[in-house]
């Protein structure tokens, strides 16, 4: 079944590439609509593939890493498209399409090599929403920090910073709401799987710290609407914390035996 994957994946890839290109290059309404159409077509290709896969293997295709990456690709592009239709942020939809394409490429490069076993605790309806919401949150917050760094170092004047800083704010609000959902989904899941909603497991602790830093940003911005530089510095620091949580936590001494360190 996965043998057909390159066909569907390439079709989706081409659609999304065209869509991002159109979104980024043009200001014309017609072309933007065409781009939205292409984004949708790409999603449709993957949906068709996953439906066929589902009926073929007689179980929900949510078990292997390859399968979850497929869902990431679908959700990221879907959320990107919906938020485009809602807010008309062209950079946002291009960015999420770009990430979705990365997932497709990873899947194309590792056909069928993924581990097919999944420990029972991970076999939960919470698994997919928990992971997808987190991935999306990290993607948005990552983008907000890029904007922050740009604002910090390429120091636009007080007048011209308005636009970029609004972009950072919007990304943080979007990302933060997803981060909150990810945290809370995780809590509900943990209750079902381990009997307690929050155990201060190192990964949980670091995810929580990340959340707190963005919480600081939101509150700081709320009452200090004009302290742009300081706000951007807070945002840049938050991103460092986010990276620790994502990549670094496995190497911290406190993280031995974390339930979240599954690999091998």
């Amino acid at each position: 079944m996965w043998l057909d994957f390159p066909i569907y994946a390439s079709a989706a890839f081409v659609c999304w590439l065209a869509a991002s290109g159109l979104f980024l290059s043009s200001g014309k309404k017609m072309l933007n609509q065409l781009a939205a159409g292409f984004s949708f077509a790409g999603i449709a290709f993957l949906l068709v593939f996953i439906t066929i896969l589902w009926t073929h293997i007689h179980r929900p295709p949510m078990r292997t890493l390859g399968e979850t990456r497929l869902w990431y690709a679908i959700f990221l592009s879907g959320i990107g498209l919906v938020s485009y239709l809602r807010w008309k942020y062209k950079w946002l939809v291009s960015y999420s399409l770009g990430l979705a394409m990365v997932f497709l490429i990873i899947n194309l490069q590792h056909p069928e090599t993924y581990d097919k076993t999944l420990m029972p605790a991970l076999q939960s309806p919470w698994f997919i929403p928990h992971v997808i919401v987190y991935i999306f949150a990290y993607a948005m917050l990552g983008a907000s920090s890029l904007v922050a760094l740009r604002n910090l170092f390429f120091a636009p004047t007080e007048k011209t910073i308005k636009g970029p800083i609004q972009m950072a704010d919007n990304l943080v609000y979007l990302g933060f709401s997803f981060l909150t959902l990810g945290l809370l989904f995780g809590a509900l899941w943990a209750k079902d799987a381990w009997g307690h909603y929050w155990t201060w497991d190192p990964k949980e602790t670091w995810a929580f710290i990340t959340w707190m830093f963005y919480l600081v940003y939101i509150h700081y911005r709320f009452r200090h609407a004009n302290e742009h530089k300081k706000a951007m510095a807070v945002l840049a620091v938050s991103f460092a914390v986010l990276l620790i949580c994502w990549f670094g936590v496995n190497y911290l001494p406190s993280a031995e035996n974390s339930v979240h360190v599954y690999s091998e």
Partner: protein
Amino acid sequence: MSNEESRKTGVHRWSYREGTMVTAAILLLGFALQAASGGIVLRIAGFPWNMLAGLAFLGLLILVFVIRPKHSIVKGLGSVKAALPAILGFTFLVLLMGFVKQDVEPKNTLVKLFGLTHLVKTWPFILINLYLMILLGIITIKRLTPFNFKNAGFFLNHFGLFLVLFSTTLGSSDMQRLTMNCYENQTESHAVDASGKMIEMPFSIKLVNFSIDEFRPKVTIVDNKSGQIVLNKGKAQLEMMDRDSFTIASYHIKVEQFLESSGKSEDFYIKKNESGSAPSAKVTVNNPTDKTEISGWIFSGSYSKPPEMLQLNESFSLAMLPPEPQKFSSELNIQTKTGKNRSTVIEVNMPYSIEGWTIYQTNYNTEMGRWSNLSVLELVRDPWLPLVYMGIFLMMAGAAFLFITGKPKNGGIEHVA
């Protein structure tokens, strides 16, 4: 408002200095208390004292708003000037938890003195929680009076977090987590807590059947001399036996016959379904480099039967690893003291609730694997859970609000008193 004015009217506006000082004082006091008490593990009083304290706390919060809503301290506590240092103070404690491994024996005296290995149960943690609850309580009431629908998102986020902190802090000592060992066809009515104390349950559980579904086993290459799995770039080369033929480390493997559950009979394997049976397969291995072909049986082995490998050449053998569990479940019959009788099947991620207790599948005799006759259950009672969930759901709705409304224009302070 200038300093001059504020002095005249007797209103002192909080700046970050006041906010920071209060948070710092709370942390210092907390660590001092912790050190003075000799690094004990703190426990909040149980029912009914925790509930009475909670009600008194809520009453006090409301009372303050009825008599002195405009007092400068109340105003100060309800401002970002207090909130930011408080959030940072809490972050500081959580950061400590992020770096110091929790729930282990403290390694040095300083760590022990300040309770750094069990921070959640220390004075500074509980005090800062209390302080956050005071702040959240004050701003929630402040924004609710008068009610304005524009503040709905604010209310959901802040009151949601208030509820979560309130119920988890107060409820921590009413929560019971016990372990029960159930053996097949036996009835058990006792469980043990973390300290090993035996506790009688209001029901008895009979384990009717314990079963495991397994994944197909994986095969790998083993070094004949060391008996270790051969690594390639630091990774074991594993292939799952769910296809008729596959390639592993350049060997072509053809599966002639696969037996899910089998045992040895003379020098081959046959279908068997008795304790100790395990998967086996007859394979033909093709080595393209020296053009040899070998065929024979491999067997994963079990707690009572030795595994069997297939020697490929002088250096390497093909081995079948014990299959990994895909799902394990317990069929239970529960008899309560109140006369209820329930039959149910529980598995990981699918607990069962009865009489205020929730029963979780946690473990089994992993050495015996599929033939384990022991099922380890966790029994959890958490009477404050509905409040915690309510807080969580409010926060979820709040997150949806943040997503939909986004950042308020002009910083959003225009609809704030």
